[in-house]
């Protein structure tokens, strides 16, 4: 479980390569938001979370909910590399009959617990899973990742109240704060600022980190575990398209797959 930072960084490079390859092969899908989430997902699946890929339905496992479901390629990359299913499936992303759907579907992909894709619904479901775990006195931790555009959905704030009201402290949310959505910069489309103050006002423990630094990701996840009586929100400052210079910070790469040319250029940079 306890991998060194160096090892995690190496894994994250491979995860990014897998994401880009599977998207390019699928010829559609969401590149930018998968790359911005890659380091956090790597930290969760290869260091922090208690889970067993050979036993995906293990009762005591920690649970991860990808509320921003369009980053499915990032989730599939870490699930595949962890061993939930054969990485041969990567080349079948988004294809007819594949277990890797455009957006995650419970019951279709091993390791996927929650169906997402319609934004704003993941936190509520994470709350429910966390409450069930508390009722059963389980030690599970529930993680949920949201996008910064996603938090424009009203349901997110309804769920934010629920988590604080019911003191759901076995829940840790992570906000992939990459500053971009589909139609442009979050600040131009519909500002969500000031994020830390909002979540604090809603009764959450808030930690801000650089979402691409493993030391910060891991220590924030550890700190969250120590907090009792309230849920934790880790606001992770990230870069959309992180790892591929010509994609970084570009709105354009939200919902398009890399072309063959772009893939080759990207792989050269990453390797």
């Amino acid at each position, binding site marked *: 479980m306890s991998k060194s930072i160096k090892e995690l960084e190496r894994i994250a490079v491979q995860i990014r390569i897998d994401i880009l390859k599977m998207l390019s092969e*699928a010829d*559609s*899908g969401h590149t930018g938001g998968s790359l911005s989430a890659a380091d956090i997902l790597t930290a969760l699946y290869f260091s922090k979370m208690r889970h067993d890929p050979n036993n995906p339905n293990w009762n005591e496992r920690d649970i991860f909910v990808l509320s921003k*479901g369009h980053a499915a390629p990032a989730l599939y990359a870490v699930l595949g590399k962890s061993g939930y299913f054969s990485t041969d499936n990567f080349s079948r992303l*988004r*294809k*007819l*009959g*594949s277990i*890797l*759907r*455009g*957006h995650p*579907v419970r019951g279709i992909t091993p390791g996927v617990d929650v*169906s*997402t*894709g*319609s*934004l*704003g619904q993941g936190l509520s479901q994470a709350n429910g899973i966390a409450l069930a775990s508390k009722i059963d006195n389980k030690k599970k931790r529930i993680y949920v990742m949201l996008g910064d*555009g*996603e938090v*424009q*959905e*009203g349901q997110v704030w309804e769920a934010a109240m629920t988590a604080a009201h019911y003191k759901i402290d076995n829940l840790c949310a992570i906000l992939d704060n990459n500053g971009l*959505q*589909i*139609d442009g910069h*979050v600040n131009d*489309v*519909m500002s969500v600022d000031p994020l830390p103050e909002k979540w604090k006002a809603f009764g959450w423990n808030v930690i801000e980190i650089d979402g691409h630094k493993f030391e910060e990701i891991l220590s924030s996840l550890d700190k969250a575990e120590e907090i009792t009586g309230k849920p934790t929100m880790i606001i992770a400052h990230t870069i959309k398209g992180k790892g591929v210079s010509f994609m970084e910070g570009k709105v354009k790469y939200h919902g398009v797959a890399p072309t063959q040319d772009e893939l080759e250029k990207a792989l050269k940079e990453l390797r």
Partner: protein
Amino acid sequence: MTIKLGTREVYGNILAELGEENKDIIVLDADLSGSTRTSEFARKFPDRFFNMGVAEQDMMGTAAGLAIGDKIPFASTFAIFATGRAWEQIRQSICLPNLNVKIVASHGGITVGEDGGSHHCIEDIALMRVLPNMTVIVPGDGYETEAVVRTVTDYKGPVYIRTSREKFPVIYSGDCGFEIGKAKIHHIGKDVTIIAYGLMLHKALDAAKNLRKEGIDAGVINSSTIKPLDKETILEAARVSGALVTAEEHSIINGLGSAVAEILAENNPIPMKRVGIRDRFGMSGKSKELLEHYGLTERDIIKAVRDVMSMKKGSCQSRITPITNQKLSIKGRKLQDSSRFTAEIAEKIQK
């Protein structure tokens, strides 16, 4: 060469044009303006465009308020998020007070493709059709889209329009016209008539052509208004054909098929068959593969025609001459003016 045009492209362009003459038009989108094509209006009239962010429920409520303030709001996003996520807002804030809000949602149906089940919308017609005061329209090609958008701008009341990600072949011309609640009769068949809208209208036309080669007289009606349904035309087709098939890129539950079945059951219960998605969620795949997988091909329509014809008891003689060459009008407008954009694009593509 068949010219193909996206109904969402035509919508975006006409909206931007209408915005010039009609300053009351306000456009709202929920972070999908590039896909719904409202981006064109946003570029031209930034002061009358409101990006609401990823917040469809808030968008519908805001649109309702704009209508109360005497504006003509057009609210756009993907069909599933418009009709699914914000359904109760549409019901409570828009339909109950009968407000003048136009909801034009793109990516209807299953030809959304690879994004998968969460993004397919095979329930929108059902969800909108059930709401009192709501008008439900799915245009069949570029020309009809232009006529529809122009017509609903002048009409007062809630309207839902579905556009598609997929481009449709152009089948009409500049004078196709459009009247709310009036179906376009391509032909009423002596043996059977297929009633369809949107993408499946094109499959129905192909199916009818091939059936005719076998000596089966299959008619086609474009029921682009699903609500209010053109009851008169459907009953006429029922009387002449003695058997009907409906075809739609939608669940077989509560779409056009159900609406036609309701009318037949209460007035003239003849054999009918529904082509549609049989109570299942979609999965990822290419549009063409999905249409095959979920039974939405010309072949499926032909099979339904054969099935329904074998259900017919005895033969059915035509008692009236089928209506041909129906000319519909757009209220108060010269028809040539109403199809300028589509004609221009069609010409450009042809070159």
